Each structure stands twice: as structure tokens, then as C-alpha cells.
């Protein structure tokens, strides 16, 4: 968490001599850290350009557990971290109240004997007594110690024999929505955000100074360069690769990549997020979320393709087996999807994955002969705002812009005002669940989506009945949130992630996206193909007995409707792999 050494001021002057750069700051990476820095810098009046290779939140930020936790794990070793985590959780609630949801956790204690269980419970109780002191910072509720009988009533699906347990309170967030909100706010404060645009080279100038980037637009194939006074590498697990694009040494921006997966189950199984231990002792959880449940997570060293992270059968089984011990009816639930991401954990040799720090560091690459380049390594979703602030402080100091950070008080788009979903029901003729989900995702900006429907009532059509998502919202994400593919729309709205796997909505969504971005209907169909193939690939490892029938019917239906995917892979989409269909 130690901030950087600043570059010598002379470096900046040297750059200035070579002509004015296009922008003050280039940010590489559209995860939570990249969009967080872009927003903070734009709010401080800096001119920012952000480049994202795929889509906002494509990486860890859109594939995390989404917990804005208060850092209880640091309570015994480093209570200051717990304090600042809780404080920042409170800030995030203030700036994006619509995006946060309460997650009541339940940690049941089984214990071989009453005595052992009692000892464990007493430890928990004492531990959470201390944590409770920090809870008010984030409007958290104090923990409650429960008896075995109480637990059996509260969570009837739990295996019999719990001797007691504790509940405690955390907050969750939709990481993709958080990235989009930060990016949109940055744009509204003058930033450029280029999605589906990969940085292919870091441009070096006099004395090795990093003075900009070369980029390639992955949809239309165009490329170009952009110069800046300072460049921030916020590419998470890709950080070492990005640093190498400027010829930096291998260990300049090293992380220890830790893959984690989650599984969506088709129904709400529990009332609480239930914690339990996996076969290796790691903690995993089964969490209710909207109308589904989420099972997570794993943590394994990962050296595979970062652009194509997929859950494996082994990982799925590991989670199922772990939860089945305390929640046997999990075998009856239907896995309807998985997602996987790679944590950009700070590099350290030796420790077991789980003991690795989740903390962060700003690296000034002046130390590697590349002044003007910084890497943001490590970090968590929960601490993104703080991390972005630390990074932007360095940028502002370097650029001599004495404007203080405002990201802890200035609301994110949609977070300025609370909207009652009933208003959307009455004014837009939406069903209650449609309205509630819309309001969750967009906060006060749901009123802008509503306006679209009022202007053209046909846009009120629910095109993804599973989630549900309206046509107006799809169009809104393309018009105002940089969605360029069906995958992008899905990341922002959860379109196509329900039981039908996108069978009913992908083709139509592709047509809408293609029309709005001036592409042909055929390209729209390719966008649908790309989404469907990717989603099928993500589901394959998790399909169980009940889902299998649905999958077989879905394959037949899609073949009848849109044919087999074209045998030629499309070079301009992210999802070019079609083997999942075969």
C-alpha cells in the first residue's frame, strides 16, 4: 500500500520540449482501478484517455465475488486496514447507494463435539465483537450469535447438526455496473474512453520516458497513437504483459495471478450467504442474489490465457462438494452459468494463494528506466476508490494540479437520488421485477431509460424475459454506456444469463446493437453467435442433470433458427471459439 517515488521534475520538462501531448493522462485498462483513476483524474480537471482491450469490467472487476467487505481478515493483524476498508465501504455506499446490497452472512458451526463447537463459537463471538465496532462506518449491523435450533429455523436446508453459528453483515456490489458508472462519470467530465481498443505498444521518448501508446481498435481494425504526459498501467493480471509492451523487464510489474470461479444456480437456495469450508480448509460461500444463488469461489495460480478464462469441471466440483456437506440439496439445484476471473495479487514467492495479501501498490517505473509510467498492482474491488485516489494523488502532484480528490463525496451517475421502482411501474407500465432490476442497475438514471419508453412505448418490450431486460435499457447501454457487442450488453444488464441461456434474446439484441452502431444485420447475428458460443463454453463444465435437457433443446432450437456458427471465426469479436457447440 506504499505509494510511489515521484519522477524527477526534469523529466516532465523534457517532454514538454517535444511538443504538447494529446492528453494529460492515459489509463490502460477498464477495470475498476482503471475507470476509478480515470474518473478521479477527470474530476480533478485532468484530460484523460482510457483504453480498454475488451469491454469495461471484462477482467477481474466484472468477475469477482463483488463484496465490498470491511476487511475482517485484517482485524487481528492490521486493524488499520479494517478501519479504512469499512470507512471506504461507507464512501462507496454514499456515492452509489443504488448499486449496493446487503449480504447477511451466516457461519454455521458444526464441530465434532459440543465442547469444540463451543470453543469455536466463543472465538467467533469475540472476533465479531471487535468487528462490530467498525460496522457503523459502513452502516453494518452487529453480529448475532445463534443456537443450533435457531439456525435450523433460519436456514431449513442446512444439514442437521449445526451446534450454533454467527451472522455478520457485509455489502455486495455489481462490479461491472461499478466500472461502467466510473467510466460514464469520467466521460461526463471530459475523458475519452475507448473500448474494444487494445494498447499494442508503449511509446518511449527521450531518456526512456513513456510518452504515449499505440492502439488498435479490435472491432474496426483501425489503429493509431495517442500521447500523454503520464501513462497508468491499470491492467490487473495483464500488468506484466502491458509493461512488456514498452520493453520493461519481466519483473517490473509482476503479479501473482490467482484464478477464481463462481457458479450461478437457477434459484434462491438460502436466506443467508452461508459460509463453509472446502476440502482444503478454504472458505467458500453460497449466496442468494436476486432470484438466483451464487456459489464461490476458488483461488488457484493461473498461467493460462487471460483473455479466455473459463471454469473447469474440477473447480465446479470442488465448490459443489464443499457446499454439499452443509447444504445437501445443492445437488438438486441447476447450474445455469459460471464466470471466472484472475486476481492481480501482489507478487510474493512462497505463501499459499489464500494467505496472499490483497493489498495494492503504485509502482513508478522510473525505477526501471521508464519515467512517466506507473502500474497499479494488486488491490480489491472494495478498495478501488482509495487506490485510485492514491494513484491520482501521484499524478496530480507530478502534473502540479493541486486539486483534492472528490470521489468519496461526488455521487456516481445514478447515485445522486433515490428512485422508487413503483414510480417506474406506474409511469412506464413495467412489471415490478423489471422496474426493481432497472432501478438497481441505473439508480436515478433509470428515469432516463423510462423517458425512452415514454417517447416510444415499443421500447418497453421485455426482450430478455429471464432477467428481465427491456429494449429501452439495451438501447440505453449502447447509446450511453459504450456497449458494442451482445456480451457488453449482457455484462451491463445480465441479458441472456438466465435459464434459457440467451436463446430468446441474443439474436434480437445483436440486431439492435448492430443497428445502433451502423453495422449490418449479419454482423448483428455474428455478435449473437459470439455471445451464445461464449456462454455455452462457460456453462459446459457446470451442466448437471436438469440443465442437460434444457441445453439439448437449446442447441436444437438455435440450430433451427440461426444455423451452425459460420465455420470461419470472426476476427473482430472477442468470442471466436465455437467448439462448445459441437
Amino acid at each position, binding site marked *: 500500500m506504499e505509494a510511489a517515488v515521484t519522477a524527477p521534475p526534469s523529466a516532465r520538462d523534457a517532454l514538454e520540449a517535444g511538443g504538447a501531448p494529446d492528453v494529460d493522462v492515459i489509463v490502460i485498462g477498464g477495470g475498476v482501478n482503471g475507470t476509478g483513476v480515470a474518473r478521479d483524474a477527470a474530476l480533478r480537471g485532468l484530460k484523460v484517455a482510457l483504453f480498454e482491450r475488451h469491454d469495461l469490467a471484462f477482467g477481474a472487476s466484472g468477475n469477482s465475488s463483488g463484496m465490498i467487505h470491511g476487511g475482517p481478515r485484517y482485524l487481528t493483524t492490521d486493524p488499520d486496514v479494517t478501519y479504512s476498508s469499512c470507512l471506504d465501504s461507507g464512501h462507496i455506499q454514499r456515492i452509489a447507494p443504488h448499486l449496493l446490497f446487503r449480504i447477511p452472512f451466516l457461519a454455521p458451526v458444526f464441530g465434532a463435539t459440543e465442547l469444540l463447537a463451543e470453543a469455536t463459537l466463543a472465538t467467533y463471538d469475540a472476533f465479531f465483537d471487535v468487528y462490530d465496532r467498525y460496522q457503523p462506518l459502513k452502516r453494518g449491523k452487529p453480529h448475532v450469535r445463534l443456537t443450533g435450533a435457531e439456525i435450523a429455523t433460519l436456514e431449513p436446508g442446512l444439514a442437521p447438526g449445526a451446534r450454533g453459528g454467527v451472522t455478520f453483515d457485509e455489502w455486495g456490489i455489481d462490479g461491472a455496473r461499478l466500472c461502467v458508472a466510473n467510466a460514464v462519470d469520467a466521460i461526463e467530465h471530459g475523458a475519452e474512453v475507448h473500448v474494444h481498443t487494445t494498447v499494442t505498444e508503449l511509446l518511449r521518448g527521450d531518456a526512456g520516458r513513456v510518452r504515449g501508446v499505440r492502439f488498435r481498435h479490435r472491432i474496426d481494425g483501425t489503429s493509431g497513437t495517442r500521447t500523454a504526459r503520464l501513462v497508468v498501467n491499470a491492467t490487473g493480471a495483464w500488468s506484466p504483459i502491458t509493461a512488456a509492451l514498452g520493453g520493461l523487464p519481466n519483473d517490473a510489474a509482476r503479479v501473482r495471478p490467482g484464478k477464481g470461479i463462481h457458479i450461478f444456480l437457477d434459484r434462491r437456495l438460502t436466506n443467508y450467504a452461508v459460509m463453509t469450508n472446502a476440502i482444503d480448509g478454504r472458505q467458500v460461500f453460497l449466496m442468494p442474489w436476486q432470484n438466483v444463488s451464487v456459489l464461490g469461489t476458488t483461488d488457484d495460480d493461473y498461467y493460462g490465457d487471460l483473455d479466455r478464462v473459463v471454469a473447469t469441471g474440477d473447480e465446479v466440483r470442488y465448490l459443489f462438494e464443499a457446499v454439499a456437506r452443509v447444504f445437501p440439496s445443492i445437488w438438486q439445484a441447476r447450474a445455469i452459468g459460471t464466470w471466472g476471473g484472475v486476481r492481480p495479487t501482489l507478487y510474493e514467492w512462497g505463501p499459499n494463494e489464500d494467505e496472499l495479501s490483497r493489498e495494492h501498490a503504485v509502482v513508478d517505473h522510473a525505477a526501471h528506466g521508464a519515467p512517466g509510467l506507473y502500474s497499479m498492482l494488486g488491490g480489491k474491488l472494495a478498495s478501488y476508490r482509495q487506490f485510485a485516489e492514491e494513484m491520482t494523488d501521484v499524478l496530480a502532484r507530478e502534473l502540479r494540479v493541486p486539486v483534492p480528490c472528490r470521489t468519496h463525496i461526488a455521487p456516481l451517475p445514478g447515485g445522486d437520488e433515490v428512485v422508487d421502482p413503483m414510480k417506474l411501474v406506474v409511469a412506464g407500465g413495467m412489471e415490478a421485477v423489471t422496474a426493481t432490476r432497472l432501478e438497481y442497475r441505473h439508480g436515478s438514471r433509470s428515469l432516463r431509460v423510462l423517458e425512452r419508453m415514454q417517447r416510444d412505448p415499443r421500447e418497453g*418490450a421485455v*426482450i430478455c424475459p429471464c432477467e428481465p431486460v427491456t429494449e429501452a435499457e439495451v438501447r440505453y447501454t449502447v447509446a450511453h454506456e459504450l456497449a458494442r457487442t451482445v456480451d457488453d450488453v449482457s455484462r451491463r444488464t445480465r441479458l441472456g444469463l438466465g435459464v434459457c441461456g440467451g436463446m430468446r434474446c441474443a439474436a434480437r439484441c445483436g440486431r439492435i446493437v448492430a443497428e445502433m452502431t451502423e453495422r449490418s444485420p*449479419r454482423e448483428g*447475428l455474428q455478435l449473437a453467435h459470439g455471445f451464445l458460443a461464449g456462454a455455452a463454453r462457460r456453462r459446459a463444465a457446470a*451442466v448437471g*442433470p436438469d440443465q442437460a435437457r434444457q441445453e439439448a433443446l437449446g442447441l436444437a432450437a438455435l440450430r433451427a*433458427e440461426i444455423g*451452425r456458427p459460420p465455420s470461419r471465426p470472426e476476427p473482430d469479436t472477442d468470442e471466436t471459439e465455437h467448439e462448445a457447440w*459441437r
Partner: protein
Amino acid sequence: MSRRVVVVGAGIAGSAAAFAAARAGAEVVVVHDRAGASALCSGALDLEAWDTDASGEVAARAQRALTDAELAAFLTALGAHRLGGTAPNGVIATASGVVRPACAADRALLDLAPLAGRRVAVADIERDDWDASLLAKAFGASAWAEHTGTTFTPVFVRLLRTGYERRIAPYDFAELHDDPARGAALADALNAAAPDVDAWLVGPWLGIQPDTVAAIRARARVPLGETTSLLAGAAGARFERARDRLFTELGVEVRRGRVGRVAARDASWALELAPDSDGAPGELAASAVVLATGGVGAGGIVFTWRLPGVVRGFELPFAAPVTLALDGESLGGGGSLYGPSLETKGLGALERVGIACDALGRPVGKNAAQMGLFVAGDAVAGRPRTMLGAALAGLASGNVAAGG
């Protein structure tokens, strides 16, 4: 005494088998359970899976198959489909915005082939699941439309009576038009909306009774027809009704229920039915049995946990002296601890798995005791999952089963 053939499954394969066996003079009993693929399908009848890169060969082979007299006789008797149409190769529009070949299809689907070069109106109604303007754009941009100079234009049609009709299931919306008054109103609305187009393309809304579409067409001024149905829509429902009518005409005995066991007994076969709603288990004797129980989608094969949560694998949901195969390998003898992995085999394995059979649809790997046991349609391993493929296999096995 005539031979008694029991057909298990009433999809298109089972229906064809029953048709052939009855015509060959056998006494036929059909046992079936819930809706299979034929009852949920799109309305198109293919021989091989069509491809977005489809070559003319696929269509030519399908066209040849349709000259098979028995297939033509079966489909004519079923009375729900159009064969070929007026042009040699049928062309249809799918509900997902694609124009594609289909040599035969449910009668209600609009055959675009004779409309080449004409103006087709796409009915624009306020259903949530229907986006006429974008669909018209997609159809119009298809290679076929561009090649033939056919245009597709959305035309608003005032059809919905209540806001409620905007969101009801497609099946229920189609069923509304079985009411003769509603069917007539639909034709009138189209006539009024655009008197000068060459044809109307509508969604899968033209009733679930096979005869509804003819009544609507009689009243409409220009040709009209549907796109395909997505899963579980009107086309599948019409198949089921046509099939039931065919069974009645053939004098086939129909038993609703699940077969739990098929076993050889002396020189014949015994089938046990799972207890019905009255709790009475049934027994059937047969000289020959046709298994037309469908694939994973129909529930004719299940993907299951073998021990609570330990082994995942494919299984036949009833006992029978046959083995399952996937990609040419038998699944009977174990394999990996966790069964075949969909991760490595791909989800497509769910469509490739089936009962191991020889080219004649006889289950392989068992001895002569199995004479008289046949398998047809999606139940067969590795066969293309198509309506015409299943129908041809059903006809062949029905014939042999009746012949002894």
C-alpha cells in the same frame, strides 16, 4: 395372428414407425409420455442440419429423400406439412431473423421461394417478443433476398385486443386464433393494413389446430404464413394434433405413460409401464418393439448423478437390453470416474449421445435374443437430429418390425 408392434415414443420417428407398421398390417400400440423434440420444434423439416454456409448438396439430398414414396405418403397422411412447395427448394424465415432453406415445413410457415423478387410485408404488432422492423431489415439483408431482389417491409397491424396479449406466451397467443372470429379478424386486419403487398409474413401465431391456417388463408387477399417457432411454439403443437388424428385414423392404440422396462420373453417382448395416475402399473406384450424415445432434449436419455453427487453420466431412463454410445464409444463399461465430461466433449455431446445401433437401426452389441427390437430417430447415437431423418428411420423400422 397378426404381429403386435409396440412403438415407444410419439415424436415423428414413433409416428412414422406406427404408420408403417399399421400399413403393413400389424396391430400397433403407441406408448408415449411428455412432449419430445417433435412437439417442441421449429416447424422446419430438414434431412441434415442446414448450415449458414449451406451448399446446394444438402438441399439436393433432402429433395431426393422427399421423392421416397413412403415418406411422402406418411407426411401426406399426417397432413400438417408442405413438401417442397411450388418451387423445388423451399425457403423460410426464422423467428431469429434468418432466411434459410427448408425442403419441407409445417404448412403454416410461409414458403418464400415462390415470392422471390416480390414485396413481402412483415406484420408489425406490439408483441414483446416480436420486433418487425428489425426483423424485416435482417430478412431484407439476407443473401437470398439480395440475390432474388425480394423486399421485406414492416407494416403496422392493429391486432392486439388487450395489453395482456403483448406478453402472453407465444403458444397462448397462437391459440387465440383458433377461435374462428379471431382468425377472421386477423385476416381482415392484414387485408386492411396493406392491400397492395404480395404476401404477409407473420409470427408463429396462426393457431395450434392444424386447420386454422387454411381458414385464415381463405379469407386473406394474398399469401400469408409464419416464421419458424422458437422452442415450444405453435408448430410443435400442430404436429401433436396432426399426429393424434393420424393415430385415430390408423386405428392405433395409444397409451399415455412411461415405459419402465423392455425385456425379451421367450420369442417376444414384454414392456412394463410405470404406474399411471391411478397407480396401476401396466404390462404389454409385443412381437416387436420400436424405441423412438428421443434424445436428451426429450428426456429419452438422461444426464444424471449416478451416486448422490458422485458420478455424472448418461443413462437410459428405463431398462432395456441396449447400450449407449457417444462418438462411437460405448458408455456401458464405465470410462472415467466422473463419466464423459461436457467440458471436453462440448455441449454438443448432449446431441450425439444415443443408443448404439447398426445402419438398420438394430441395437448393436447384443445377441439374437434381440431380434425384433428396433431404435429410430433421436434415440439413435450419432445421427443428425432432424425431422426427416427421424421420419425415415421410423418408417424403416416400422416396416421391418411389422414384417417379422
